[in-house]
């Protein structure tokens, strides 16, 4: 197991180098440069030339790449073009936001999706089963941004129960040592702030988690249906074990395997798909950061951001693989 993990971690190096090269070349191949984005209608050939020279964009690509890598190995991901801040500073603000949002969405999807799927399987063929299938279909079909606007309209505008935008109310002031607003609020001992942060997470989590919820529910249902007809379940019941123990120790534990796979996949999708949710809720996460950077040709953000996201992705995949072995010892990583 240890060798497996170490080997996967070592693979990170060539993966990241290859990716950085790819990204570097790709974004420079795009038409137009950050200069035009900065000045809009006010750009002229002279001003464009000056800005490109300022950012070293008039040098050959390989020279730019080598000098960029020189700074990267020192831990410096460069300075953004639009806001003139260190890329690492913005990363430190954006990434926790995305993690919080993704975690909230996943929690929502898991806490409601698994029970829903479980019940549907147990009540196979009844109206509960059909209703849950319908709900899944709807959840997967509704476009996320439409659901988001609808949720905001009902719960925020009409009912006034939840906020529409942001991570925290502008009238609440707490420090942000970690940039995980939930943790920051707890560290500040401000329960009012903590609850406010949660309120701001609710609608985005529901919107973003709607698809994973539908998928997880369906997979859970299928997995449970599958497992409960296995021999070992019948044996367990024949032994006279209490139904609840059969459900948890035998059915659920074995059904968890495919469910975990799906959760792992959904996490990856969530990280990328959060752009729409972030936009509608003005939630400042990685999604909007990177998409804006593409639009504005903000090279340092794209280079640093994509590098970082790839790094995280490889780690998450590794974690999922390792978790298989923990859940079901029969699966050995060879």
């Amino acid at each position, binding site marked *: 197991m240890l060798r497996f993990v170490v080997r996967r971690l070592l693979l990170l190096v060539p993966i990241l180098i290859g990716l950085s090269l790819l990204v570097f070349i790709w974004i420079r191949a795009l*038409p137009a*440069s950050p200069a*035009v*984005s*900065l*000045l*809009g*209608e*006010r*750009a*002229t*050939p*002279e001003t464009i*030339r*000056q*800005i490109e020279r*300022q*950012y*070293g964009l008039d040098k050959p690509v390989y020279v730019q790449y080598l*000098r*960029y890598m020189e*700074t990267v190995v020192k831990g410096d*991901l*460069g*300075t953004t*073009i*639009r*806001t*003139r801040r260190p890329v690492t500073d*913005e990363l430190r603000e954006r990434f926790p936001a995305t993690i919080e949002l993704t975690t909230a969405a996943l929690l929502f999807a898991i806490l*409601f999706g698994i029970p*829903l799927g*479980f019940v549907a399987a*147990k009540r196979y063929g009844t109206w*509960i089963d059909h209703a849950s299938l319908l709900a899944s279909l709807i959840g997967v079909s509704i476009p996320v941004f439409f659901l988001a*606007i609808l949720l*905001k309209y009902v719960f*925020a*505008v009409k009912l*006034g129960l*939840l*906020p*529409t*935008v*942001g*991570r925290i*109310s*502008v*009238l609440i002031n707490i420090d*942000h040592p970690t940039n995980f607003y939930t943790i920051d609020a707890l560290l500040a001992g401000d329960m009012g702030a903590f609850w406010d942060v949660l*309120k701001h997470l*609710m609608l985005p989590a529901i919107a973003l988690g709607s698809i994973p919820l539908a998928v997880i529910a369906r997979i859970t249902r299928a997995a449970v249906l599958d497992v409960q007809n296995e021999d070992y379940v019948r044996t367990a019941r024949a032994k006279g074990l209490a*139904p*609840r123990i059969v459900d948890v120790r035998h059915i659920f534990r074995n059904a968890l395997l495919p469910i975990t796979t799906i959760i792992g996949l959904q996490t990856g999708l969530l990280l990328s798909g959060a752009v729409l949710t972030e*936009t*509608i*809720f*003005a939630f400042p996460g990685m999604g909007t950061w990177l998409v804006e950077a593409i639009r*504005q*040709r903000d090279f340092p953000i794209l280079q640093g951001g994509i590098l970082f996201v790839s790094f995280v992705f490889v780690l998450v995949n590794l974690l999922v693989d390792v978790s298989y072995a923990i859940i079901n010892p029969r699966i050995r990583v060879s």
Partner: protein
Amino acid sequence: MRDRVSKRILLLLAMALLVVAAGCGGDDDESSGEGKTGGTLVFAGAADPVVIDGALVSDGESIRVITQIFETLINLKPGTTELEPGLATEWEVSPDALTYTFSLREGVTFHDGEPFNAEAVCFNFDRWYNFKGPLQSPSASYYYSAFFGGFAKNESEDLSDPLYKSCEARNDTTAVMTLTRPSASLLGALVQQAFSIASPKALQEFDADAGSLDPDTGFKPSGTFGTEHPIGTGPFEFVSWTREDRLVLKRYENYWGEKAKLDQLIIRPIADNAARLQALQANEIQGYDLVEPQDVGTIEGTDNLKILDRPAFNVAYVGINQAKKPMDNLKVRQAVAYGLDREAVVNNFYGGRGVVAKQMMPPEVEGYADTVEEYTYDPEKAKSLLQEAGLTLPVEIEFWYPSDVSRPYMPNPKNNFEAFAASLNKSGFKVVPKTAPWDPDYLGRVDEGNAGALHLIGWTGDFADADNFIGTFFQNFSPQFGFRNPKLFKLLDDAEIEADRQKRIDMYKEANQLIMEQLPAVPYAHTKPALAFRNDIEGFVPSPTTNELFNTVSIGEGGE
């Protein structure tokens, strides 16, 4: 047996939902108005500011914040394009338009308690003049070099000779500025936030100009003036700035002018239009800018919301690139002008907030000609002009429009394009449609002259001067329009430096007539961009240049 487990799960789920619903409660009303004075107003722009230092930015969101904190020597009368005293109470221009003497307002202090005086004024002007390295780049000091040209020591050959020569603090209340060559638009230009006066002490103490230039990853500012200590003389003081979340300002108690009624002004960035509108409806914000035309109806139809109009200060036009044949033939350009159904476009796609443009600058700006050549939609006339030019019909031309964007002067480019293409196709042309995303592809193409024979674009004025419109477009050769007209170039050059106001106005009028004869572009719309507010917000005066002060704003009693 199985039933009990799943029943329990269902019950748990239901309870969880109930707990969540019960826990969510309470009003999310985030404004606290206590009548006419006091309270906090939350206003939403479309993006986070870049830095709070007028000399180093060109984006509207930074300028919005800077306008509350810093002041200029000369102001615009709120809601108009007329000049009025700001930090300078009087001014005198020498007959040769080289020397400007400003009498400064007394009793003004910076937010850090330092006195405002002539020395502070000259310090600021000298600071900009002496910018080095990356600060000379248009990504930083665009507005400075757009007006003053180059710096003390130009580090790029793209920078022209500096217009600024020196500034002398003759005494505490008199600052004398000397230029290297005459300019007649200095006063109008000085209203721009790029020329606002900051506290010299703060500029130095917080290293406003400090930073390193990494040749590949750009300019790394290291000072904290523009991010933590922007200190000016304006009605609001800086409190704090949390990126992508909020920028907090509070009333400056020692302001020389009309003290702010609000206790606090919070500006937050919300990029998505629909999100801004919903935040307003939910009273999480009490006002926002850049209202989409399609939302105007919704807002006007809602009881507790209202729309405020800005006077038109922009122009939407069809640009013609004369480097692409046959656009270099005047008859062909005239045919284009007769072939565009501008009335139809303005009446249908501007939500009632546009007027047909007859010149390349709005009527509010001095120098607008009384009469010019007019071109009403006439497909037959267009066809005969093309035939006179010796061309076989239909004449095929590439016509570019941007996708993915809504501009104040052009809310929906695609609609405009389709209507114009249809009318041109009826007028002896065969339009080849081309499109690209606005930012940065389309803009880059237009700039380089790579956007076909015709392209859709526009311009919002920076300051109330004809030079800022037609001077910007047609004073020199540019790849965008691809023509050289020495008569027009010279006329605009001379007008820029003509010190006699009436003579200057006449020269610009003549230029506008020449432009509408020669048709380097065909203007088609001026629009009134809109802002949205809660009904109980009073005292906001929209400005054509979008620089609005919040010191007159208050939260009234009525409306929720």
